[in-house]
């Protein structure tokens, strides 16, 4: 035991609760609740109809059980589906945002006030069910980039929302996507018009604060012809003994020659050492490379959540389009992760690349599950997948479930996977050169994840490296 083990057990530093007056709706789920959420957000009729359709479909669906994760049955009637900080006045500028909220985000390392904002990154801060602030909106607007909360987009750009909402992840796609479609509260909306390279990195920061509520946000990013955007997502939650449900939907659409780079550092509360509490992170993320030569790249660093169940996917429709997936998933204690990707090759000469690194420690269970599907029309498709697992300790598990379906003989598909541990020889080699075991482990893990980290925007890469170090503190020895 010792160093790595000591490393992994450090306190979750984002576990505080913000004491703020909240506006909540009664717990439970039925059509009235869906109507209430819609009314709270003052939504147009079509959106309410869309929600209700999703809800009615959800009622008929069964909760999926195929994932390699285990948890007690979720009582969907015991969740609060809408929780928002009480609005003081209609806020026109950041000065009007409740200082308690600004403080919260500052504590999380996301300053929202103009003087302190991270240079080069526009942030949409989401607190429980609503977006509290979006920075650098004006600067983006000058370039024609729309970056705002989802609710705002519904009112201001209904045509765009209507056109793309549900076009990648239909409301009936799966159990959690249908649930989200019925009750989603807020989220981020980005629209990058033709030929524009977003001058800033766009980012959303999600925070769950209420112990009884779930978070159901919805993100939609559309990159028109030749546009480029890099989008970051971060998340934390306070420490509660109760499990909370986070069922988000993310939709990306890339038209001809467009590129979307989506990076996530997921650090939801993971539960304590005994596996009590933590977030159930059941998320549907999907991108559609609709146009020719378009590209969607997912990068994720998954360190939090009691249970992670997500498969950021790419539908490669346009000829020559490219899908990428880079992932580091770290699980410790009693965490469970079943994550991976789907690459659906439809267009000609489409290419995809999957790099997945799983690290399991403690009594956790980490699975990679992926699908590479080459449709008969996808001439010249190419895929390369690599999934490596690192096990720390003898009570954890690492699994790989890659599905490869090839229906075209000009396709070239390769999949490789390996599992190993940090060997005594490796540690010995470091020690012999005067490097402590703790540093050695951290260097080896960083080396193991390097291929993924170098895909992250700089600020995130630093954060991710630090996060891994913190999470693993004390799990090696």
């Amino acid at each position: 035991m010792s160093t790595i083990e000591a490393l992994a057990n450090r306190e979750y530093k984002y576990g505080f609760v913000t004491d703020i007056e909240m506006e909540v709706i009664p717990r439970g789920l039925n059509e009235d609740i869906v109507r209430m959420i819609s009314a709270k957000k003052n939504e147009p009729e079509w959106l309410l109809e869309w929600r209700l359709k999703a809800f009615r479909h959800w009622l008929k669906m069964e909760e999926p059980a195929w994932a390699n994760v285990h948890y007690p049955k979720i009582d969907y009637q015991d969740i609060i589906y809408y929780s928002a900080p009480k609005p003081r006045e209609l806020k026109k500028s950041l000065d009007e945002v409740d200082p308690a909220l600004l403080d919260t985000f500052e504590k999380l390392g996301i300053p929202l006030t103009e003087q302190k904002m991270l240079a080069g990154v526009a942030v949409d801060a989401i607190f429980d069910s609503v977006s509290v602030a979006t920075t650098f909106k004006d600067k983006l607007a000058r370039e024609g980039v729309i970056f705002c909360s989802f609710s705002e987009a519904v009112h201001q750009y209904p045509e765009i929302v209507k056109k793309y909402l549900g076009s990648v992840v239909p409301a009936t796609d799966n159990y959690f996507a249908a649930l989200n479609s019925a009750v989603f509260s807020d989220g981020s909306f980005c629209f990058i018009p033709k030929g524009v390279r977003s001058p800033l990195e766009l980012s959303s920061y999600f925070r769950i604060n209420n112990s009884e509520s779930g978070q159901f946000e919805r993100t939609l990013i559309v990159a028109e012809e030749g546009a480029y955007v890099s989008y970051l997502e971060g998340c934390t939650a306070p420490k509660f003994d109760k499990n909370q449900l986070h069922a988000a939907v993310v939709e990306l659409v890339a038209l001809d020659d467009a590129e979307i780079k989506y990076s996530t550092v997921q650090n939801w509360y993971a539960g304590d050492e005994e596996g009590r509490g933590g977030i159930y992170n059941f998320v549907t993320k999907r991108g559609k490379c609709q146009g020719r030569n378009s590209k969607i790249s997912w990068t994720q660093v998954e360190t939090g959540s009691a249970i992670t169940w997500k498969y950021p996917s790419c539908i490669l429709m346009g000829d020559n389009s490219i899908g990428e997936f880079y992932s580091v998933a770290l699980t410790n204690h009693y965490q469970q992760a079943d994550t991976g990707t789907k690459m659906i090759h439809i267009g000609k000469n489409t290419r995809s690349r999957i790099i997945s690194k799983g690290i399991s420690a403690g009594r956790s269970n980490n699975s990679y599950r992926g699908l590479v599907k080459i449709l008969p029309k996808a001439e010249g498709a190419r895929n390369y997948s690599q999934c490596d697992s690192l096990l720390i300790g003898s009570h954890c598990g690492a699994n790989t479930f890659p599905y490869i379906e090839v229906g075209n003989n000009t396709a070239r598909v390769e999949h490789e996977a390996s599992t190993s541990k940090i060997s005594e020889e490796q540690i010995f080699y470091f020690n012999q050169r005067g490097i402590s075991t703790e540093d050695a482990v951290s260097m080896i893990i960083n080396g193991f994840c390097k291929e993924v980290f170098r895909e992250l925007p700089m600020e995130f890469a630093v954060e991710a490296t630090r996060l891994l170090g913190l999470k693993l503190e004390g799990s090696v020895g």
Partner: protein
Amino acid sequence: MTPIAAKEKNDFLPAVRLFAKTRGEGDPAWFAGLRQLAAARAEELELPTTRDEEWKYTNIAPILKTPFRQVFDLQLNGLREKDLTPYLIDETRGSRLVFVNGLYSPELSDASNVSAGVAIGNLGAIPETLSGQLHKHLGAYADYGKQAFTALNTAMLGDGAYVHIRAGQVIEQPIHLLFVSSAAEAATVSHPRVLLIAERGSMATVIESYFAAGENRYFTNAVTEVFAAEGASIEHYRLQEESDRAFHIGTTHVHQERESIYRSCAISIGAELSRHALNVALTDEFTETVIDGLYVVAGRQHVDNHTVLDHRKPHGTSRQLYKGILDDSARAVFNGAVFVREGALLTDSRQLNKNLLLSSESRVDTKPQLEIFADDVKCAHGATVGQLESDELFYLASRGIGAEQARALLTYGFAEDVISKIRLRSVRRQLDRMVLEKLHQNLEVN
């Protein structure tokens, strides 16, 4: 694709009920008892549909659509020894058992040269002296409690092959078990069963062949159980060369004890729809397992290979190489699972599945799978799907080898990776011939 409600469609049950009545008297009590237990399960279990994860890519509907007739009495239908010639293996002369439509044929079998260290014979007529030994193992590994096809096979326990190798015996001459389907007017079904027991420190080579005399439609539902005791070493070949209109569902269960070695090579060339599930349990320390496979399919054939390597104890080593060649609108499925249980430290496992697609209509679904619950292990797997390399073709062209010949050479070379690992020369030759025939290619090979 609507999965068929299997329960009503299980046409095999009347035969099961009838079968129990035709036998009984002569069988040892435990044998009849096992059959009875399995028959009860067969009544309850539903046949798999594509909704079952294990059968996701293989739809057995065509099997269920065909009415099959169960043969209760041996009928050779004019089958003679010379009809078997293409399938016989020189090295096994005087050491073969032949089953026709699942029934033992003493006439075609020839056990004149079997060494004293081994007993081979018909499960339907177990000698008193072996009854205890076979009782211990028959039905102990192939789980008829969960798998519908295994339950059916076990419920039809009668004729079948047993091979019992005595402790410490090294059997030089390989043993050949042939399962022939012979022409009959109506489609027939058979449930071949093999039990292979290698006692402590023994060593032997066994070949299982499945083929047909004629182009008829039939269904083979085979189950093989292999037990390798401490220090035993088994080489096991499985050659599936059924008729192009046949259905073949095969299941092999292997139980390895301490320091045992199991090497197998499963070849699938025939059948319209075939599946072979190979499950190896490495139940003690220091076991060694090598499982190879080759499937070559064309036309509208569908071939499915499922393997499970279950590392339960430390220091197990496993190697796996499955290769497939697909032409026309053939389909192949590969699912290879490797489990490393908690505590199975120092496991070293490697798995590779490679597929060569020769035509634009062919299709492969492959799923290598690792489930690991121990940290000090080395496990790797890989899967590839591709076509012939254009630079390789170019290289051969630059040496004056025509396009057709070059393709034949490269395709043959792809298969040869697996075939060349087979230690019996006659098996290699037989396979070379069959693979080339299958791909309509002419190549002089030695």
